[in-house]
């Protein structure tokens, strides 16, 4: 039974260490920890590059205004991570209405974001903190039985980004 105590101590130690680390970080917003506006803009840029190079999902961006897309990604990430920005785009539900996104596509996008964050040197620990905020969007983006084939007919409104 000595192993039980050993494991319990190990678990306790690890949890305590992560709590202490977490408390020290709580002073700064994730936006600041990640590197502020310059880094957020670099992330939006690189994320867009990775998405457009990914054959699993790049076709869903065929009609996307890329400059506007990058701006909205920047605003969204900035806003979510506690930065001084307002997100001016549509809700995730609205903007993905016609994309018929599947689970695999959602995860491909998540993977592309991880790759982009790696490329602009955001530490993996912080990458996950951003992902925590994005992951719950799954319920607004992926619909049961989705085909993965987007309806890319031009939208009625002028707001066509994403």
């Amino acid at each position, binding site marked *: 039974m000595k192993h*039980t105590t050993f494991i319990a101590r190990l678990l306790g130690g*690890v949890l305590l260490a992560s709590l202490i680390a977490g408390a020290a970080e709580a002073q700064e917003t994730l936006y600041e920890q990640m590197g502020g506006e310059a880094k957020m803009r670099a992330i939006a840029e690189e994320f867009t590059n990775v998405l457009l190079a990914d054959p699993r999902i790049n076709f869903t961006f065929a009609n996307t205004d890329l400059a506007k897309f990058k701006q909205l990604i920047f605003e969204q990430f900035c806003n979510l991570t506690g930065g001084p920005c307002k997100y001016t785009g549509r809700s995730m539900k609205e903007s993905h209405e016609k994309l018929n996104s599947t*689970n*695999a*596509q959602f995860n491909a996008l998540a*993977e592309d974001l991880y790759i982009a964050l790696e490329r602009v040197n955001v530490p993996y*620990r912080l*990458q996950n903190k951003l*992902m925590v905020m994005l992951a*719950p969007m799954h319920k607004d983006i992926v619909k049961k039985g989705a085909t993965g084939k987007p309806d890319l007919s031009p939208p009625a409104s002028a707001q066509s980004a994403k």
Partner: protein
Amino acid sequence: MTNSPRRLVRVAVFVLLSAASAAHAATDWIGADQGKLHLTAGFSDVEGAGGAGLVPLAFVTGYGSSDSWGANAHVTTVHLNDFQLGAYGVGIGALDRFELSYTRHELNVTGGPLDGLGVDQDIIGLKVKLLGDTLYKQDSWLPQLAVGAQYKKNKGIKDAAAVGLPGLTSPTQLGADDDEGTDYYLSATKIFLGQSFVVNATLRYTKANQFGLLGFGGDREDGYSLEPEAVLAYLFSRKLAGGVEYRSKPENLSVDTEDPAWDAFVAWTPTRNISLVAAYVNLGSILGPVTGETSDQKGAYLSFQVGF
């Protein structure tokens, strides 16, 4: 006899490697979407269930998302002081909900008075994810929950004559009640993504002695018991995790003062088609009262896996 498991490993590794290279190209026409993120497919554990090394997780094996299916095959070897266990098997996951697996265990005694003895067992596993989506629902405290059953059939003891025990062919002769049995388990897995931790707790309802390799039930206890298991893993990167596992086991036999098992592991998925689990494992003493060797059986756990 000691050569055949090794040859089997070589053949299996070759077949699996070829399968892995084919899998990438073939997934389109077999309808496999490989839609999960790295590390979330669940490695095949030592009994074939989607898990880590010794403990099943609530993840469904394979990289198929809830719209699809996937599979994972493993070749695993555990080298302990006086024992070597080979485990080979395949698991299929469907709709990110159902998992079916088959694994073969081949245990060889490699030291001590029983050197040369062998035991084989077959394990057929079924797992069903009940609820939760621990990856996406980061805004919820709910873990992902799965229940599973593992039917285990002990194929008997081999080569007992070589150690002066002719006629010893079944673990029932060592005091076990039965040479077959079924484990039932409930696994709760939670990804604390913000902290880069994965925590799993499993409760197993079992009669198995040393995973079933020494039969089921025994002269000391013949009924089922409820045994706790746990995994704590840290995510080092998108493709690399490491952690510790603990697994309590029943003590049903007088000939075996069975101890809990634990390990410290790393799990790596360089691609969606290949994964590796390496661990330092301690299974506690095995058959101490028989062999006189009461110290812990510990050593290396290595699992090579391919899937999609």
